[in-house]
């Protein structure tokens, strides 16, 4: 696995990798590639991907009434920066 590819995967997830992390990941991908090859031994032709354990419907439509409302105060209580009921971010227009 090329380092530039690993960096690209990390960039898509919005973080950077150090040189040590990249080197360690290169090693990990050797093992991972061998493990992924184990999947190729399983015949999955005509098999549908399994997304959840049970194909049971547990969702439903309810009346559009407010329920479990989080107050603005509580929603902002953990915000690193807040002002006038909003999350604060760096200026876009400078």
């Amino acid at each position, binding site marked *: 696995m090329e380092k530039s590819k*690993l960096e690209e*995967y*990390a960039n*898509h*997830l*919005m*973080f*950077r*990798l*150090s040189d*040590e*992390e990249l080197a*360690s*990941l290169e090693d*990990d991908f050797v*093992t*991972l590639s*061998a*493990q*992924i090859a*184990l*999947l*190729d*031994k*399983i*015949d*999955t032709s005509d*098999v*549908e*991907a*399994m*997304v*959840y*354990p*049970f194909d*049971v419907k*547990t*969702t439903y439509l*309810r009346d559009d009434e407010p329920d*479990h409302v*989080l107050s603005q105060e*509580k*929603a902002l*209580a*953990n*915000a*690193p*920066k807040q002002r006038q009921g909003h*999350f604060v*971010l*760096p200026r*876009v227009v400078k």
Partner: protein
Amino acid sequence: MNISEAKKLKEEAVIKSRMMAKKSNEKLNAIVTLIEDDKCENPNGKLANVPIAVKDNFSTSNIRTTACSNILNNYIAPYDATAIKKIKEAGAVMIAKSSMDELAMGGSNLTANIGPCHNPYDLKRISGGSSGGSAVLVASGVTPLALGTDTGDSIRKPAAFCGVVGTKPSYGRISRYGVIPYASSLDHVGYFTTNVQDAALALEVLAGRDDLDMTSSYEEVLEYSKLLDYEYKDLTFGVIDNVVDVLSDLEVKETFLKLIAELEEKGAKIKHIHFDNDLMKALFPTYFIIANAEATANHSNLDGVRFGVSKEGESMEEVMINSRTEGFSSFIKKRFVVGSYSLFEKNQERVFKKAQKVRRVVCESVLKELSKVDVLIAPASGKVAPYIQNEEKQDELTDEYLIAENHMVIANFAGLPSITLPMGFKDGLPLGVNLTAKAFDEVGMFKCAKAFEDLTGLKDLVKEV
């Protein structure tokens, strides 16, 4: 102290538990936050005055919830998870938020941002993870009940290493509302106790439909603790031979096979099951790919903007990148990269979709064999708890690692109820056995577990430190 003993002690149980928690934590490092002001809200409840520890990924109103990650080090949830609400309504008293692998993504508890959690049977050894702190607090007698979560075997493996009972019920049996997710199609809420009777009672309190969790089940909740009577002749155990065949520690193998022989002598029926070995070797990579892919999506909200630890930056993107770069450990970032890799358009069909298809093949094969028995049974691990120092030096391509150390993910793939309980000791360290039943047959699972527990006599094990 088990649940019934705690209930008899009333408030004394809580006082004793808090004292033990403070005394032992210097050695065990099992606690993230000590809770000193919680009180019994229902003196007539099923868990009245029962001290309880809660894994630090359950949202607890006004109490820090960090998931042992630096990025959530200052996070205080604005509400209680449904499981927390239920234990409070039943009268339980929270003593501590317990240590865990960072964001529940590990099996050793070595990745917690507060440092390793120590096994009470040998402080130089790991607790197992990711629910290690909860396992340790029950094993060391601090609390008779502790909540955990299980995505691969994160309750059932530490239960084996710490000599306690670890229960992961069916998918959707306990609401996950308010639990910080890892991999949503595999995540389960479960718990630790010191015996099977207590495990059955805890499920009565915790189980049930919750409209706030769309995956929670409408299946009826039974009085499991009153449905434990059994006769050995009515029980059929399916031994997973693939696991037994790859065990390199002959003492573990003999301990297990001797107990199987004793079950048969008592009148239980034993069937030997041999799954396709290639399928068994594919369990771990299937799990690893699906879990990490789902985790990358679930944790995209940890951005340093709305909650959690934030780092300065010149733009919104920079704030997010700096917060996530510093907020996650190297271990977590590497896992996320694996998830990102498998979801990339170029790799998606070959890696992620392939794993999802293998998952279905595994489940169909397992359900076919499970229909012929009451439970599948195998050692929960082929070894005792490893040393903290050596934990990361495993060859992850051996059959023993791929099969014996990872077979319990089967129950997460198929949403099956699964329980680990003690089966013996090696050099003074606990060994565990795992039983897995049909979906929503918790009654059958508990009966077989009770039969096994009665056979070994290994219940209410406590190792105080």
